[in-house]
């Protein structure tokens, strides 16, 4: 049996660990709130953007006179997917439960079953780089340690180049693999095709009767500028979802760790008390038997 001294030492060490995990949980909670606020602030913009895109698309589809340009095709009639661009979003730091493992699993499955060639791979986060290394894939670009305000810049960069690539026929689709933020304690690894956009067919009938908008200066020019904006918004949303998920996952993991540490301390304290008690009992017996003799 371990000595009293050993157990005391262990309790102290577990207590230290618990302090660290508690602090990390607190920090994650603050960061989660920040990410979530950004996500909530973006939502009205994103939903309106999607609405505008939908209207423009329905409008152009309903008008036989308009000849869709290359940008319009991204929304209207997808080309055969031969070459795609993939954005994989994970975190920079670990200690967040299954966050990275789950999304990596989804990405691996996607890559394995993807019939088209991945010609361009963007990875966001150190864990994503590690994943790419394991998969023997060479990332075209790595984004590491991006702070929350820096996401906008990353998103603008990716969406501008992706739109240009689609325009030039270098890629046929843009996919993102990320963690969808269900709630602070639940994330779902998600594979999303940003464009070509999947249009819900039910919209078309509903909106067909509505007044059609004039598109200034001309329909293709509008779509040409709308596409990068739409991609930007979608990507920003995905990155924010991932960031909120990461902090949520870390918070949950650290909460569990703190609880486990608490349990361990309770158990060790009990053993320690038992040993102490046994020691005292022994000493009393010794004194009593000594007095008797």
């Amino acid at each position, binding site marked *: 049996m371990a000595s009293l001294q050993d157990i005391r030492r262990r309790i102290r060490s577990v207590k230290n660990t618990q302090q660290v995990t508690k602090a990390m949980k607190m920090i994650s909670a603050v960061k989660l709130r920040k990410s979530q606020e950004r996500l909530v602030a973006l939502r009205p913009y994103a939903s309106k953007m999607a609405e505008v895109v939908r*209207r423009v698309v329905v409008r152009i589809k309903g008008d036989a006179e308009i000849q869709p340009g290359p940008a319009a095709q991204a929304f209207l009639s997808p080309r055969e997917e031969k070459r795609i661009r993939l954005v994989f979003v994970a975190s920079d730091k670990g200690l967040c439960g299954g966050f990275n493992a789950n999304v990596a699993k989804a990405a691996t499955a996607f890559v394995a079953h993807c019939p088209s060639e991945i010609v361009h791979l963007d990875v966001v986060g150190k864990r994503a780089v590690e994943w790419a290394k394991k998969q023997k894939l060479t990332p075209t670009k790595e984004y590491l340690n991006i702070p929350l305000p820096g996401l906008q810049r990353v998103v603008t960069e990716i969406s501008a180049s992706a739109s240009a690539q689609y325009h030039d026929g270098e890629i046929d689709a843009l996919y993102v693999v990320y963690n969808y933020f269900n709630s602070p304690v639940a994330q779902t690894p998600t594979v999303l095709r940003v464009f070509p956009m999947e249009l819900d067919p039910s919209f078309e009938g509903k909106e067909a009767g509505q*007044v059609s908008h004039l598109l*200034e200066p001309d329909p293709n020019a*509008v779509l040409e500028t709308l596409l990068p*904006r739409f991609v930007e918004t979608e990507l*920003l949303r995905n990155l924010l979802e991932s960031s909120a998920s990461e902090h949520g996952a870390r918070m949950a993991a650290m909460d569990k760790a703190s609880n486990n540490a608490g349990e361990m301390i309770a158990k060790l304290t009990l053993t320690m008390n038992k040993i102490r008690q046994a020691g005292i009992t022994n000493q009393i017996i010794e004194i009593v038997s000594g007095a008797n003799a």
Partner: protein
Amino acid sequence: MAQTIKLEVVTPERPVFSAEVAEVQFPTASCGYYGILPGHTPVMTEVGDGLLYYIQEGQKHWLTVFGGFAEVGPESVMVLARESETMDMIDLERAEASRQRALKLLKEAQTEHDMALAQAKLDASLIRLQAAGHPAGHGF
């Protein structure tokens, strides 16, 4: 017919403005300024950089807008701006500092690309200054 239009300005960062107004004017990327009164034909267009004004209860108010999209309907104007600020969100000192910086950059610019970047920065700061009624903005 409605006497007012619902003006909504949203950016990725926050919803900036939402209210019933009598008249709106905003800059477009390619077709100059658009003035919108209630009952306007539905139009969708790209928004440029500049000042948007709306008239509410006979008072003219200004907002800055930087890029984005506008959807105009008979009873509503929705502006999806990349960036937008109301008057009280503008930090005068920061805008002035950024104007000075942009002027310096413009002088030092070597390539055409640098020049364009500095010019864009200068324009943005001037728009903000003009919106806030600062004298430096009025030469714009």
